[in-house]
């Protein structure tokens, strides 16, 4: 049952082979046993979970045509506000914050009849690529607990990899769904900007933040995205588009699919073990009838520096709301009002968050705005234009998700810039607003999972999911799990 796809779980529930309550209990028991060694969940509430499961069992939604996910449990990254549950965003600042409302995504999945298992650990305010910046301690990679799970959705990735949840929500501002999915051997998708509402999702960099599904397979991602996506007037950047069935093209063969391979993604910088595995995956795609064509994204090398102007600038503005007045941490001792702000923020935020607020404040400050922020926004347009040109010659773009397999704890934490470069292949899609996904395509050094990245054109989710699903029909990487957790 713990390895089952959403369709299988749905069928088992519909046939009354198992109840939602039994299914939730099975996962809760497994979490109780295995989570202490992984630190993937940071908030659990058995009574609440079971109450939701019992409500699902009694609702009539289980087995109904329009609620195929009813009764299936999932877990939320702790960036999503969940009414009545602690919502910490991985920070001391929100250590005791119980959200007074649900995020749109949480509302939608609850309306679909899904059951919340708990809240998942993450890099503080989603700023990090290793989960080492969480106030609640790092998440361990289930494949090797001496290694990072990636970040910032590291708790989501570790929970699914260890089969402590069938699926989970994640968010991706510069790679935070795709990189942990790659490092933990999962499938994860960041939709086109605006497809999923940001309402109730704690803001990091508002022009880049996007929520998406994390799961074992592309099919599960498609089904979860069906339930997550949709217009929401409470997010001013939510797009009003007709509803899509993201699973509609899964069974279409790939003959004729044109795969663009950006030469900049296959140069130096990618580890040899990752390259070998990615090359083998591309060979598999050619066997499936796809053709590969070289494309160029000449400005992609500028994506990481441009991102580290734009994202901190937006973060410094978004995180100014944490002032110790209306909610969140307040320092126990202070003098005047400014001293209260400064001490509360100094004590409530961790080192990486403070660094990014300081950088963001600097690049937006008088005299530097044009040189840094406006300059980075112009380069952002160049990066987006590169993709537009590349998609004239291909249907999807493929390459590595991460330049290396999961690294050891501490390996990059002393040098922020080294850590930032972990997202070298993922950041450009956020800047362009494009959808991107990662799927497992083999194992590299130290027997750690390697992810293949698929980048789609704007609103190309169904095509990416089709490409991923067809590959997963002829490979079994997405079904593998760590031996010691079986």
């Amino acid at each position, binding site marked *: 049952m713990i390895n089952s796809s959403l369709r299988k779980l749905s069928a088992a529930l519909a046939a009354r082979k198992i109840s939602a309550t039994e299914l939730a209990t099975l996962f809760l028991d497994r979490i109780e046993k295995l989570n202490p060694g992984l630190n993937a969940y940071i908030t659990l509430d058995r009574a609440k979970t079971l109450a939701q499961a019992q409500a699902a069992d009694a609702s009539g939604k289980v087995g109904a045509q329009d609620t195929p996910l009813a009764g299936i449990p999932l877990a939320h990254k702790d960036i999503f506000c969940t009414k009545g549950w602690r919502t910490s965003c991985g920070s001391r600042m929100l250590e005791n914050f119980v959200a007074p409302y649900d995020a749109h995504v949480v509302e939608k999945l609850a309306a679909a009849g899904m059951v919340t298992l708990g809240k998942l650990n993450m890099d503080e305010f989603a700023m990090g690529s290793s989960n080492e910046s969480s106030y609640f301690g790092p998440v361990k990679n289930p494949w090797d607990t001496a290694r990072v799970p990636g970040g910032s959705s590291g708790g989501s990735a570790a929970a699914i990899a260890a089969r402590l949840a069938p699926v989970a929500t994640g968010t991706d501002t510069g790679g935070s769904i795709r990189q942990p999915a790659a490092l933990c051997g999962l499938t994860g998708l960041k939709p086109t900007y605006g497809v999923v509402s940001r309402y109730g999702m704690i803001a990091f960099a508002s022009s880049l933040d996007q929520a998406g599904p994390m799961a074992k397979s592309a099919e599960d991602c498609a089904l979860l995205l069906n339930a997550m996506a949709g217009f929401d007037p409470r997010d001013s950047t939510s797009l009003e588009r007709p509803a899509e069935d993201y699973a509609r093209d899964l069974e279409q063969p790939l003959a004729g699919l044109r795969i663009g391979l950006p030469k900049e993604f296959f140069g130096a910088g990618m580890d040899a073990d990752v390259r070998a595995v990615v090359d083998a995956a591309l060979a598999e795609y050619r066997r499936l009838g796809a053709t590969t064509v070289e494309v160029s994204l000449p400005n992609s090398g500028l994506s990481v520096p441009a991102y*580290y102007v734009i994202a901190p600038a937006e973060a410094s503005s978004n995180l100014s709301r944490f002032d110790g007045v209306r909610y969140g941490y307040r320092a126990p001792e202070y003098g005047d009002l400014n001293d209260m702000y400064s001490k509360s923020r100094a004590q409530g935020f961790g080192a990486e968050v403070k660094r990014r607020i300081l950088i963001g404040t600097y690049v937006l400050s008088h005299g530097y705005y044009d040189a840094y922020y406006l300059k980075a926004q112009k380069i952002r347009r160049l990066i987006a234009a590169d993709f537009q040109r590349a998609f004239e010659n291909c249907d999807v773009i493929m390459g590595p998700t991460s330049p290396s397999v999961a690294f050891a704890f501490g390996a990059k934490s002393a040098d922020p810039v080294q850590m930032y470069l972990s997202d070298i292949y993922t950041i450009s899609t956020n800047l362009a607003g494009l959808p991107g996904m990662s799927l497992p395509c083999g194992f590299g050094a130290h027997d750690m999972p390697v992810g293949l990245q698929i980048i789609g054109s704007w609103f190309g989710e169904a095509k990416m999911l089709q490409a991923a699903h067809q590959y997963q029909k002829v490979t079994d990487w997405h079904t593998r799990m760590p031996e010691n957790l079986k």
Partner: protein
Amino acid sequence: MSLTPEDVSRIALLSRIELSPAEREATREQLNGILGFIEQLQAVDTAGIEPMAHAVDVVQRLRPDVVTETDRRAEFQAVAPETEAGLYLVPKVIE
């Protein structure tokens, strides 16, 4: 360019984040490392390029000017550090 200790103090003040003298020096080194990294943007020719502020071109939607929120003050203030009679309490700002 490289930040001086005074620059770091000024940015910290603007950010409302208190830094101890020891933190200030370590922060200065890290910020200079990051600024050195983003310096490469300056070499790019961006003449005539429009800044891209957002991932998709959308315009602000307008909605009818009607009340859509209900009064949830008690609920929202329940998570505040300090309140009294429906007000948020902060140190005195006007003598």
